[in-house]
């Protein structure tokens, strides 16, 4: 029969430690997104450049990022490159892995967004004497970011959830890592992970809310 006695206090007493972990999780997610967006813009530029080497590089990145498990990508960033004598700390590996993944997915979203912008926008910008880079930066990029805003905020959610994979490369300061360590100490598995799930949920809701505020502020047209 069901004889488990819930001891929520065991989990709630650890809430401050878990919230510290949540803060680390947020920082990793935000940083990996900012970097991910920048790298995705770079990859988009590479694909548009018409240069075979650059666009080949971008395509390879995007293909690997989108078609292999995120866990594999984070693993590679830690244990994989260690084979060549390159050592990244757990947090750096996690950041590299998630950023790599974010950039790949976002670049693909950007490609879709670019298709929604008429070619005539570039022609109009070039006609005014803008170089290809200025036309992209001032006319195309802002429209592209607006069109892909929802996919971007979706990827942000994904970035938060992906931080939980850090535990596999020895991360123990983020929300999932902290929870895992507390579980090893107390064995209140259900209570601790349920609480962690609630915290993840709240973080994601906060991000969605923030994204909506940002969209209202940025996109007034």
């Amino acid at each position, binding site marked *: 029969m069901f004889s488990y006695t819930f001891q929520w206090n065991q989990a709630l007493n650890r809430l401050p430690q878990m919230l510290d972990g949540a803060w680390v999780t947020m920082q990793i997610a935000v940083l990996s997104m900012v970097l991910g967006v920048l790298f995705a813009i770079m990859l988009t530029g590479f694909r548009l450049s018409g240069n075979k080497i650059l666009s080949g590089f971008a395509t390879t990145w995007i293909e690997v990022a989108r078609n292999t498990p995120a866990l594999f990508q984070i693993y590679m960033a830690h244990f994989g490159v260690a084979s060549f004598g390159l050592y990244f700390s757990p947090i750096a590996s996690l950041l590299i892995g998630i950023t790599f993944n974010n950039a790949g997915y976002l670049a693909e979203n950007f490609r879709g967004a670019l298709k929604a912008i008429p070619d005539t926008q570039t022609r*109009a910008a070039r*006609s005014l*004497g803008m*170089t290809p880079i200025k036309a992209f930066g001032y*006319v195309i990029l802002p429209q592209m970011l607006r069109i892909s805003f929802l996919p971007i905020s979706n990827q942000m959610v994904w970035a938060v959830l992906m931080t939980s994979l850090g535990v596999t490369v020895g991360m123990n300061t983020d929300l999932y890592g902290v929870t895992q360590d507390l579980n090893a100490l107390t064995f209140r598995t259900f209570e601790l992970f349920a609480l962690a799930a609630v915290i993840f949920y709240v973080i994601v809701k906060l991000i969605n809310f923030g994204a909506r505020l940002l969209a209202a502020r940025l996109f007034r047209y």
Partner: protein
Amino acid sequence: MIEIKEVYKSFGALEVLKGINLTVEKGEVLSVIGGSGSGKSTLLTCINGLERINSGKILVDETEVHAKATDLNILRRKIGIVFQQFNAFPHLTVLENVTLAPRKVLGMGKAEAEAIAEKQLSHVGLGDKLSVYPGRLSGGQQQRMSIARALAMSPSYMLFDEVTSALDPQLVGEVLDTLKLLADEGMTMICVTHEMTFARDVSNRVAFFHKGIMAEIAPSQAFFNTPQHPETQAFLSNIR
């Protein structure tokens, strides 16, 4: 002066310009008419170098447009072009649409660019729409904004590519009035158009394009009163 010498242009197997020769003097207003697919719009995009040409030469103030050494980004500053689709930049206000190129291409300061933009926008009747986004404007207003945007670069030449074709009939007049205003001020203009009244009353000369060839060019009154080429006659009789 714009000089077009023996220009050939094809898109793949399709030859759209077959040996065009044409000179447009400073201060002249030339209307280009003809059926669709006659090559008239392509000619405009060749003049500002948006399209390459297969052979021949186009000279703008004695600079060869398609020469390797020509910096098109600099040449385009003196050639304004307005397209059939208005091509407003939707993420920028009307004022920002017009100040963008003066600031980012000519390196003007914000205040200076805004002063020029406000002047050009009032000129085309949009002085009260500065902080509005283009999505809130009618087609005619968007098109006038595009004209102001091109004018803000102080071009020596203006090219108009069927600028009224995408407009509701009641909005055509306001855009044509703007073109007429420019013509009266002495702007050198090439207007690809389907507006025959405009071609006759505003332009100095009218050219008729047919299947990639300039079949006829004449002063506008003569062109409409005594067309010489059989294709011109057929085209004009279909319109009347």
